[in-house]
């Protein structure tokens, strides 16, 4: 019974998370156009101005409006979030299904490839990519494509391996159902909950990765902005102008916490394995 109370509680948290995300999506879309400033407009007169009625989040040391830049940066984080989900949903699932469903030598080869790709730390992989390409959104995208699918394909493969031997799948097979039908009608719907949870959990990871790269100056190049790069530039003048760090950090944390809350809520609702412990 306490479990149920807790579950409703965490659903409430998930609802709050959703509201915050929707709010941030809205702001990232219309926020930059709510005032007259451009994200890359340098203004030598209005440098490092504290937040006021004109500059809602203040300006940076080049006099660029931080409100515009913060929500420009939020857009980057949200883009990365969407990207992570898309990668999970496409590469991750396809790889996992093929590996698990067809098995045999194909599975062995695919698993060896996975082990090798997994053996390369993400930072190393991304840095390598940065060496042959210019830092920027494209490079971050490619880096995420390289690293983002592994966990999902692991999960899907394991589930497919398990479900493949289930009686209802075997019976569908004996009745002559095509592989395509079995995968889409008999197997994937039964994994859907876990896929959704896994996809939700990969979002904060991807956002983190982008922030780390940008913080190290390997991500989005100036004058474009991401929350990570804003925190990085703010950090350099943190001792004098703390708001330059505080504002992007707050938005960043709100974003990641919200995604985590949603993921948690979804896990409670969808993951049958964890519920029903108390009757």
């Amino acid at each position, binding site marked *: 019974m306490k479990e149920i109370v807790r579950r409703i509680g965490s659903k409430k948290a998930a609802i709050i998370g959703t509201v915050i995300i929707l709010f941030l999506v809205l702001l990232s879309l219309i926020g930059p156009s709510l005032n007259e400033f451009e994200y890359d407009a340098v203004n030598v007169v209005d440098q490092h101005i504290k937040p006021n009625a004109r500059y809602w989040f203040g300006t940076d040391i080049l006099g660029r409006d931080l409100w515009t830049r913060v929500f420009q940066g939020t857009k980057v984080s949200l883009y990365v979030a969407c990207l992570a989900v898309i990668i999970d949903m496409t590469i991750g699932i396809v790889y996992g299904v093929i590996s698990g469903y067809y098995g045999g030598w194909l599975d062995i080869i695919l698993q060896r490839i996975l082990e090798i790709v997994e053996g390369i730390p993400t*930072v190393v992989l991304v840095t390598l990519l940065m060496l042959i390409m210019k830092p920027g959104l494209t490079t971050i995208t490619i880096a995420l494509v390289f690293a983002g699918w592994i966990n999902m394909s692991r999960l899907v493969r394991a589930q497919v391996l398990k479900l493949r031997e289930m009686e209802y799948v075997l019976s569908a097979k004996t009745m002559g159902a095509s592989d395509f039908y079995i995968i889409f009608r008999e197997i994937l719907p039964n994994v859907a909950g876990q896929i959704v949870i896994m996809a939700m959990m990969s979002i*904060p990871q991807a956002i983190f990765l982008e922030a780390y790269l940008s913080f190290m100056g390997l991500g989005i190049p100036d004058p474009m902005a991401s929350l990570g790069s804003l*925190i990085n530039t703010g950090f350099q003048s943190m001792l004098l102008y703390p708001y330059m760090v505080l504002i992007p950090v707050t938005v960043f944390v709100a974003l990641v916490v919200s995604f985590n809350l949603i993921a948690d809520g979804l896990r409670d609702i969808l993951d049958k394995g964890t519920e029903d412990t108390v009757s």
Partner: protein
Amino acid sequence: MRRYIAKRVLVAVFTMLIIVLIMFLMFNLMPGSPFNDQHLKKDQIDALYRKYGLDRPVLERYFRYLYNLLRGDFGVSYNIQKNMEITKILALRLPITVRIGVQAMIIGAVAGIILGIISAVNHGKAIDPVVSVFSMLGSSIPSFVFGLALLYFLAFKLKLFPIMYSMDAPIASTILPSIALSIFPMANIARYARAEMISVLDSGFVDLAKAKGVSKTGILLKHVLRNSLIPILTVMAPMLVELITGSLVVENIFSIPGLGNLFIMAVQSNDFSVSIAIMFIYSTFYITVMLIVDLLYGIIDPRIRISGQAQ
């Protein structure tokens, strides 16, 4: 079991070979050169290439590199500290990074497990949600934010710790970065430990232990902890690896002359002999951690040990 270990080690070595090969190919594709000093003339650069053997084909360089690697030779730096042996550079920097990482992991694991136990045992009481909120925040805030906050308040405002790294005070100047790095693993371990212990506390053998007359502490230490360690270990391994990423930024914030710092310098100045050496260390570390965790499962959970499979 022995065959299983052998197979795992073999896969790990093979992975390392491929990774080094990929690195070589990537650096070959790289547009810049370590010798892009404007004062150098074309024939001088060519001479430098010849001197370091960079004019040879990629595969030849790859196998020569592997051969040298076997003898523990990473080559020399081209750019950052010209002609200095990389092993010597590493000898100065690696221990600092390792110290920060180890300290962070110890703080994170110990505090995380303790927090997990506290909230699992007090499941449903007031302290439980407090720990949950901490875990949620801790796993949603990147370590550089904690680094900045610690630097700002404890080092800058309160002057309790040095702002810059000092060789003379290795503990005082690495404790803040370690704490900053430890929050993420701490939060996650606390969360997993809590969930795991709640489910283990619910299992039959806890009832049997109670029926045997084992006290609460005894049950916790002898029965629950051991059975929840495996899942906790599974989440700890990727976190150890996350520390690599974390250490890059945290070293940057606290100006620590460690590996991460060196890595960024090397990458930015195209010093690829140093870059490859560091990436090699990172990858080796990563793969070794994964391997050890895999083998540790076997020691902790006899069911895996006997069947010899990780699944």
